[in-house]
């Protein structure tokens, strides 16, 4: 039987003023917090552990286990920091969640803070999503006024401050230790690990950093129980998740489904590839996850199956490209992103992304040199596993996977510009006439 959608987080996104406290409460909002506050904190952690919830921000680390790794209480502060710095190319789930239902995050944070013994929690939200920031600020203010935050939450004696912290434009701050440095008022550069944040995170105190969707999933688990959550998804990839389809599909958007759904099933729901075209390549979980092709349409989108097929589930950001698209052009754009966003702290990533872009640009222009493909792979092998954080590793994914599946397009880059082979006006979603003719566009 085909997998069907399971709206949980997205179930009320179309309600009138869905972002308001009254709308959230009308659909059962904050009952999970009331329930959690009657439980022993350790039992809340156990419930989340048993649910099999894994981090929805890309890495997929088991959430309850992450919480239980926190150093034991020593009387000092412990922190919950939510990563709302959604920036991975293709990823577009947390921002719509914050626009439509910020209270799901606030409630999840209150429950999580209670579970781990935290009395001051933070949301680090990307600075480039103004209206999502407004909605989150208002939700937090409403939650304070209603007694869900602040001192003596709902009369239980539990105290919780929640600070919304706005970033300032740096992809690297999605890396959890860079995020913590940024939150401490420093340049957002990753830290050497260990120590991990669970031992020495924010202000060198035990800290858990979790993604928005992860924490927003906690109230449902508390209400429904672990077995409710595991009734969706697969054995080791339990629960629901937002699958974000973008690109050359008839109906791009957010599809909340059990983990383990396939792209073929999602494409059926999304009306398929745009008419007259075939699927060429796609990312299962953002640009840092190796590309897939049409041969992967039936790979179950769970952590294990995607990993076994050579990529990563990541953030379930399914960027879909049809046969009109030059993979060399796409990869060059992605690498320009990584080059720009490399924080500069470590040499392999800083220099490597610079040279990858230089080589890719000449391939895109049809001016590649013999040996450029090997050069790309060599540079990648000197970044992968040698960079300070996952940004460098992620930057190699589009390059190595594109060469693996479409080597002939890179070879063509030694004599023919990408925009001659794949005219960009055939890929765009609107008709237009390029200002420069392809033949003359040798150098971009």
């Amino acid at each position, binding site marked *: 039987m085909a997998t069907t959608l399971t709206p949980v987080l997205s179930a009320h996104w179309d309600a009138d003023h869905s972002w308001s406290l009254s709308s959230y409460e009308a659909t059962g909002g904050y009952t999970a917090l009331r329930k959690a506050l009657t439980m022993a904190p350790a039992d809340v952690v156990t419930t989340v552990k048993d649910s099999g919830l894994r981090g929805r921000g890309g890495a997929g680390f088991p959430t309850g286990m992450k919480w239980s790794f926190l150093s034991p209480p020593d009387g000092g502060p412990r922190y919950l920091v939510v990563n709302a710095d959604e920036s991975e190319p293709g990823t577009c789930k947390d921002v719509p969640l914050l626009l439509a239902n910020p209270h799901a995050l606030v409630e999840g944070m209150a429950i999580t803070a209670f579970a781990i013994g935290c009395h001051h929690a933070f949301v680090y939200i990307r600075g*480039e999503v103004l209206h999502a920031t407004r909605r989150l600020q208002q939700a937090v203010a409403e939650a304070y006024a209603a007694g869900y935050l602040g001192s003596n939450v709902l009369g239980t004696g539990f105290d919780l401050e929640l600070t919304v912290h706005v970033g300032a434009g740096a992809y690297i701050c999605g890396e959890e230790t860079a995020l913590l440095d940024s939150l401490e008022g420093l340049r957002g550069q990753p830290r050497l690990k260990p120590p991990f944040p669970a031992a020495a995170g924010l202000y060198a105190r035990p800290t858990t950093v979790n993604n928005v969707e992860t924490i927003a999933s906690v109230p449902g688990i508390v209400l429904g129980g672990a077995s409710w959550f595991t009734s969706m998804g697969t054995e080791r990839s339990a629960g629901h998740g937002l699958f974000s389809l973008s690109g050359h599909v008839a109906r791009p958007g957010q599809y909340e489904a059990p983990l383990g759904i396939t792209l073929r099933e999602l494409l059926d729901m999304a009306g398929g590839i745009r008419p007259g075209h075939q699927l060429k390549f796609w990312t299962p979980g953002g640009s840092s996850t190796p590309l897939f092709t049409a041969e992967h349409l039936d790979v179950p989108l769970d952590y294990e199956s995607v990993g076994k097929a050579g990529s990563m589930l990541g953030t379930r950001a399914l960027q879909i490209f049809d046969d009109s698209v030059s993979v060399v052009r796409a990869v060059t754009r992605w690498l320009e992103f990584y080059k720009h966003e490399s924080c500069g702290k470590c040499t392999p990533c800083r220099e490597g992304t610079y040279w990858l872009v230089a080589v890719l640009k000449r391939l895109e222009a049809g001016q590649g040199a013999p040996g450029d493909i090997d050069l790309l792979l060599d540079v990648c092998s000197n970044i992968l596993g040698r960079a300070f954080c996952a940004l460098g590793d992620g930057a190699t994914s589009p390059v190595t996977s594109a060469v693996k599946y479409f080597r002939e397009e890179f070879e063509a880059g030694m004599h023919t510009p990408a925009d001659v082979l794949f005219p960009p006006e055939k890929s765009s979603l609107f008709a237009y006439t390029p200002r420069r003719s392809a033949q003359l566009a040798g150098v971009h």
Partner: protein
Amino acid sequence: MSADDLGQPVGRSLGQVHAAGYDEATRQRLATDAASILARYPKERSALLPLLHLVQSEDGYVSPRGIAFAAQMLGLTTAEVSAVATFYTQFKRHPNGTYTVGVCTTALCAIMGGDAIWEELTAHLGIDHDETTDDGVITLERVECNAACDYAPVVMVNWEFFDNQTPDSATALVDGLRAGKPAVPTRGAAAVVPFREMSRVLAGFPDGRADEGVGAGPATLVGLDAARRHGWTAPPFHAADAAADAPPTGSAPETGTPGSSAQRPVTTPSDSDPAVAKPPASKPETQQKGS
């Protein structure tokens, strides 16, 4: 508002220590705001990013006097503040236009049409990345993936979403901004606010516009719509308790119980082979999907 009336300090010339600071009334006002920012954090240095947003809300960029002000508030040197300010692209090193117009040119938006929009706008406005029109209205930027890929190609104006753009719609948008007409985002406030007002929200001072605009755009709701059309739902919360009893007989399995439409077929080795899928130690061996 234009760059001419930003009230920016005179630039520093050789031998000067700092450009002019704020007048006393302004400094007092900013210090009050700064105090409320500092109060949000257990350690004061955490206030630096919001303080720099506050400076931009006053000066339209991270001005020398703003850097000095932030340094003074936090007991840092101006070099320490500058080191942080220069790391983040949203902190502008020269006066910003009233509106930052950002065209997403990361791979997906670029290919869906962002590159074409960028070509059109640079030609139309006669400026390139991080440059400002002569009237001080528009600073043009190539921006990176802005978490709206399902609405590609995307243009951001002062970090509000303008979804599903074309070269024509983007040109009309910037022409309207330069003519002083309000710009209405696809998913955002009723109208885009100027750069300095935006910066104040980012510094943590709400502008009361959270209730404006839609909760979700069409692409955000496309999955929910499909689920409603087909009658698909997540398992109800009580299913877990219900399943503990005998499953109902003589009817379709309840959603969320074994055999119901919400159950995934066995598709991976880990679904059926316990040797492959070793459950976490804390999980009872008897616990199965849908139970």
